[in-house]
């Protein structure tokens, strides 16, 4: 038993590479075409970064409105009050509902049975 092993001289970490490192274990792909899954993953990563940017803008607007000026340190120290945090939470839900709209609509289609396309409806209307 030892309290801890002694420290050795260290190479600096390659932080950028390590933060995105692959976990051990073969990655599952759910779509038939892995290219589709790759594009989905990239799209969601971009959606995440856009959300971060939007919330940073919201922080800046709040600071400007309440203090009339803003510094980077103010942004880092900013904590929304509970009512503001709830507004930001609601914005996330609205934002995600917009981004994933097609998923919602495909889900709703499950309860609609066999709906006609507009072309099919038009053909029928032309005969009525």
């Amino acid at each position, binding site marked *: *038993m*030892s*309290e*801890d*092993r*002694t*420290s*050795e001289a*260290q190479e600096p*970490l390659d*932080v950028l590479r*390590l*933060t*995105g*490192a*692959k*976990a*051990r*274990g073969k*990655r*599952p*792909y*759910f*779509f038939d075409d892995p290219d589709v*899954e790759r594009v*989905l*993953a990239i799209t*969601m*990563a971009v*959606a*995440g970064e856009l*959300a*971060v940017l939007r*919330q*940073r803008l919201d*922080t800046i607007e709040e600071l400007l409105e309440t203090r009339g000026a803003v510094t980077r340190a103010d*942004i*880092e120290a*900013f904590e929304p009050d*509970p009512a503001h945090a709830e507004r*930001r*939470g609601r914005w*996330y*839900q609205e934002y*995600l*509902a917009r981004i*994933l709209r097609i*998923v*919602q609509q*495909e*889900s*709703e289609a*499950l*309860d609609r049975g066999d709906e006609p396309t507009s072309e099919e409806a038009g053909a029928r209307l032309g005969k009525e």
Partner: protein
Amino acid sequence: MLPETTHDQAERYNFLSHLNRHLAARVLPGVERAYRNEVAPRFQARRGREPADRHEARRALEGHSLYRTWSALRRNTMEMRQQAGLSVVLPQLPALVERARRTVPAGKLQLNDAVRTPRYLTAVDHHCMPGSYYAERVARDVSGAANYDSGLFVTTGGLLGRFADGGGHGMVAFVRKLRPGFAPRRILDLGCGLGHNVLPVAAAFPDARVTAVDVAAPMLRYGAARAASLGVGNVEFVQADATDLGQFEDASFDWVQSIMFLHETSLAALRRIMGESRRLVAPGGLVTHVEQPRYGVAMPFFEQAMRDWDALYNNEPFWTKLHEIDLDGLLVAAGFDRECLIHAGVYAIADNGGFPDAESEDVEDYGRKPAWRISGAQVPA
């Protein structure tokens, strides 16, 4: 001990929390309807019968594009969470390592280089955490634990409380009800990780000497420092393998417990863990192992298939197998009397200031809701 987050790093976590919530509340109900309206009827039409088990139900689901979409989004969210956490932790790692080293009180951390990382951890990285619990990226590393702690609420949505210790609080409430006046002098926690759940147990029994064991040194270094920083002084963090605890004498603990540990082991390990539980518990003592509820005959195959998702696609490889194992049988085989076995459910009790707790939360996210079962035994005096 929590790593510091910048404004944008905190928002990356918030985005992922809300994405997980959206997937559970808005997308998952569609998957259930897809199964009911399309997947199950097609299976019936093609095969002339219903799915015979959860594996057939899952394979049928995998053909549906909504299940594929939900799964692809969920897997990707797990991967994004890991990247987000490591991008918080790694740039400040030297400071975290130093803080942990300075904070751990003398004697509260016992590491042992001879402990090997078991195969059940090395086969795949659990929860898609690159490096799992045990990677040593730098000397005296705490990065895996800091990453785990920093982003845990993203996956659990606050259901475990702000200190992620709802399981521990739930166990304390259970034991106080089962055994009013129980005053254990020695408590052993197996597979403690960074000690989220053992701290409420230790705080509830301040006169007990608590030993928390795990194989992963980074978790123990961080956990010992975190316990000290939260003012819990009666836990020692010991690097040891729960399948082989020869350094402790027979009957040396009044309470042997684990919380959400068994599903990250293996069948062979499980047998030995039950054996060690029996050997180490003192006469009149208590053994409790908290785990996921077993898939009962009443649980529809759809729900079983969904609960298997984390096992198959979020690198919890033993999770689904554990549901097929008769834990009572293993306890009896380990030497516990069948009439002394404990069967009970337990909910996490979340101290969270604002988040809904598990009992009142109505969003089902199969397997992530902290409603568990206890397997164990009360040993005669």
